[in-house]
């Protein structure tokens, strides 16, 4: 859980604690922040909220895809002699891309 200033809050992050405004819960714990939420938070003058650290927010989801693309390029250069029309080889290829993406993601952190 991290306490972030509103300027750092992005769409897709998960709220870690109920967000209250004048004694009323306006966003429940566990809710994914939308563009609409961001507008309202600004309007209500809320300056900071707690969000989960390890979530699959939409920003990370996009970079997940990017990592897969990068991994695919890397793996392709090693699979130049492999017959990807053969189903078992294709299966191994997919696992290799997944694993490479995971490694690249880990290394980037």
């Amino acid at each position, binding site marked *: 859980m991290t306490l972030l200033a509103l300027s750092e809050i992005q769409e897709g992050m998960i709220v870690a604690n109920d967000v209250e405004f004048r004694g009323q819960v306006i966003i429940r714990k566990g809710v994914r922040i939308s563009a609409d939420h961001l507008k309202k938070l600004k309007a209500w003058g809320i300056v900071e909220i707690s969000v989960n650290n390890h979530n699959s927010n939409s920003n990370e989801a996009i970079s997940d895809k990017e990592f897969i693309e990068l991994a695919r390029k890397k793996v392709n250069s090693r699979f130049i*002699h*492999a*017959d990807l029309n053969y189903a078992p*080889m294709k299966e*191994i*290829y997919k*696992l290799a891309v997944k694993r490479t993406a995971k490694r690249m993601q880990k290394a980037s952190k």
Partner: protein
Amino acid sequence: MSSPAQRLVKNVSKIYSLPTIYYRIEKAIEDPNSSLKQIGNIILDDPSLAARLLRLANSAFFNFPQKIDSIPTALSIIGTKQLRDLVLASTVIKVFKDIPEELVNMESFWRHSIACGITARVIAADMNADNIEAFFVAGLLHDIGALIMFAQLSDSIAEVMTICKQEKQYRYLTEKQKLEFNHAEVGGYLLKEWELPEHLIIACMRHHEPHHARHFTEYAAAIHVADCFVNALQIGSSGEHLAPNMERKAWRTLNLSEKFFNSEMQQIERQYKEAVSYILDD
């Protein structure tokens, strides 16, 4: 007349020899008069080996419900031939402890070999093979010829590896072009020199071309497919930079489902971690 690969192995067979304990166990197992206790006593001659075998017997490698607290119990539950193969797996690494590391990172090399052994072991379990540890050892030993070449022919191998990168070619083919033999043959001859069983020799010698295996085709096929998988996923490295292409006939020999690796991935990773800590952490 012997081939250059055979001569290379003959020249180094004094340097790279198996510890005698393996042969003593082998002899005792082959002798119908020896008891589990007698075989156990040979293992107990090397207390650190005995302790490690017990640790392995009680690990997630086997998942036995009951605790195995003595070597004779381990022998009776795991099996004498299986335990002999695990002795081989536990002692072979030390034979190559002095290989210069300019061309190969030994940790990475053994990680590749262990991963290949574990993958072959999981394949063998799926096939209901008699002795899955034999597949483990076959995978562990499959690239051993490369170590002899790194140590004895370092200049030529450095050149081979440069050509591989430039021409985007497999190492075993480049070795053959440049030296007229490859690491699979050297490994096979070394295992022959060690008087190891035929299935290990064939698996090693044919792991790049399993269709050439006339006997023990399931061993050659399993190691070929496992090597293909492990290289493709880059679990450790033996120095091959390209993903091998899988022979369709080898895959058919094993009769695995198309999704085999997808469904066994976790199992392979779990056993791999176990084996790495057993073999590499000393």
